[in-house]
């Protein structure tokens, strides 16, 4: 288990990480979200021991990281990098050896991993001869092939098309099933909502949201309402507690100040009987993200 407690880090006058605490259990995926500069990469860098926290603790399995513990780690940096002149096999082996694995252990697994991520290329191909997408997949394989107990992925979905993003999701879920503790950062809330067991949102270095996706959404109440009924836009706008109405064809999207207003809207919308749609939901992660970012600018 990875445990971060009251982590703080400043660069000069700028507080990059401010009292951040969270845990990641084995077999759990934590999505770390936040705008650029929110403190995600700084948090990762402290876990990786690239930076020393000003205060707070980082514990792995209950103790501070030792050099041996870093062999159980898989890290994918935000900006990818490989040796262009190495072959796929040499590249994967080199990184695996740096994680304390032997060539004999890793070699037999390479083909299986190339197939898992549908890499178009042979293990004998030079990295520079692969397409950018395939290079990215090789990088992922190099991050994951030693089956790390702790996986840190900085923006793993950036630059991937939906098909490859799907392959990556499958890969991450497979490692989760193997018991790895996984933290990843992403700007794409769809991926985060889909695979995260829990999310932590950072803003200006502080944790502003934390919990499972459902818990986080529930904190905001069912304030989103999708409605298809005889009620007109102006009728809807006049209902007290409706803060915004947006029209999408026959459908209206309502933002409610209070989820209790939903009951009144339902009654008025169904006065004449059947309506095709009434869906009252918590806001999506994407909306929560925008909302939280927006708070900062208000």
């Amino acid at each position: 288990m990875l445990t971060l407690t009251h982590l703080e880090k400043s660069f000069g006058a700028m507080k990059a990480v401010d009292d951040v605490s969270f845990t990641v259990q084995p077999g759990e995926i934590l999505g770390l979200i936040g705008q650029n500069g929110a403190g995600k990469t700084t948090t990762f860098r402290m876990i990786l021991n690239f930076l020393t926290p000003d205060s707070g603790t980082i514990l792995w399995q209950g103790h501070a990281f030792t050099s041996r513990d870093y062999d159980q780690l898989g890290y994918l940096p935000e900006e990818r990098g490989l040796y262009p002149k190495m072959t796929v096999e040499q590249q994967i082996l080199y990184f695996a050896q740096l994680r304390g694995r032997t060539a004999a252990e890793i070699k037999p697994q390479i083909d299986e991993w190339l197939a898992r991520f549908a890499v178009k290329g042979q293990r004998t191909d030079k990295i520079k001869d692969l397409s950018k997408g395939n290079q990215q997949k090789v990088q992922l394989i190099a991050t994951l092939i030693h089956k790390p107990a702790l996986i840190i992925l900085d923006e793993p979905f950036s630059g991937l098309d939906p098909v490859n993003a799907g392959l990556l999701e499958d890969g991450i879920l497979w490692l989760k099933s193997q018991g790895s503790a996984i933290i990843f950062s992403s700007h794409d809330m769809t991926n985060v909502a889909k695979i995260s067991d829990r999310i932590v949102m950072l803003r200006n270095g502080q944790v502003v949201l934390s919990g499972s996706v459902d818990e986080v959404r529930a904190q905001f109440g069912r304030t989103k309402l999708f409605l298809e009924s005889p009620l007109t836009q102006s009728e809807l706008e006049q209902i007290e507690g409706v803060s915004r109405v947006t029209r999408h064809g026959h459908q209206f999207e309502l933002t409610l100040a209070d989820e209790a207003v939903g009951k009144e809207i339902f009654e008025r919308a169904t006065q004449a009987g059947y309506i095709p749609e009434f869906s009252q939901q918590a806001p999506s992660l994407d909306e929560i993200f925008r909302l939280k970012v927006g708070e900062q600018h208000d």
Partner: protein
Amino acid sequence: MTKFKIIFKQVFFKNIKSPAYIIMIIMPIILLGVVLGIGKLMDQSTEPAKIAVLSQQPAEQAALQQMRGQDYVIDTQIKTQPQAAQALKQEKIDGYLIIQQGNSQYFERKDSRDFDPSGIQNQLNEMNIVTLARQANVPADQIQKLTTPMTIKAVTVQFEAGQQKIDQSNQKQVGEGISLAITVLMFVFIVNYAGIIAQEIATEKGSRIMEIILSSVSATTQFFAKIAAVLALVLTQIVFYILIGVVGYHYLKQQLPLSAILKQVGPNLWTPPVWYAISFLIVGVLLYTVIAAMLGSVVSRMDQVQQAISPLLILSTISYMCGFILTTRSDIGFLKGLSYVPLFSQIMLPVRFASGDLSATAAALGLGLAIITLMGLTYLALIIYRMNILVYSDKGVMRSFMRSFAMLKAEKQK
């Protein structure tokens, strides 16, 4: 396998297989080959001339035909002038000499091998003196004395603690030759290896591979593994040249006219000046390598590497030029002083030592100074390396470097 070994192997084998490294190693040998090839061609053109010697007196002719010289061979079959003229026409000989009392003549074709009959003239004079002396009943030992040529032997001396000492090798020229070779080799080594390490580090940093590597191994281990790999590359090159030298020496020592040069150079190839030169070469290259590693860690992008290491290259160029001046002018006080300063000493002290301008004690002192500086600089480079290796800035190399010093105490990294 330890992580040190893994990184060491990766850096060593990547570079040793790279075309740039292979070219760097082979180039001097190719150049030497070209020089020797030209030498050999010239050697062929200076093959001894084939001549015939004719005299009207058969007794004298027989004696003349016994003459030996380095630049001529006498065809003893040719005994008459028509035979000689015919052989000359058919290019069987390069010329013929007709000896007549007071008026000898040498006949040659326009395209004959160059032959200077004045050498043979001395031999003839000597023979003449011997003949006349015998006729005058001069005793044999007197004749011997009469014909012993005067020789002048050059003796090189050096002054150590005010005492004049005869340089045992007596090979000032050889010393100068070695000095020149040291200067050139040292410069080539420094420029190449400083470039290799800076490029190596900046490539990994610029392509962000560094982050992955440093998430599995400490910056200190990685730094020393890289420096060790460069040292191994330097040693590989030196050992390669020594092997080539040994093989080449055995082959070339039978070749004219190199055998004469090798006879002079050979004994000087394994003497203190050469040991010191090799020691200085290793320490000097390491000094520059460590600084280059430090500079390489400061840059953010590959294209900044040249800019970052250019001050270092300028420094090595200056030390090269100073060393070069010292090969011919060892009396400039300023250069003598400068020659002890690390980063200059690796070229200048071996040159001074090889040309006999410096005692072994002073050379050892300079080497010691360079080693102490190397240790200090390595420590500093390691700190700067650890601080900068994961810090990216677009403010230019100099600003990044200055910031590092400012942060030296403020920031504590792995």
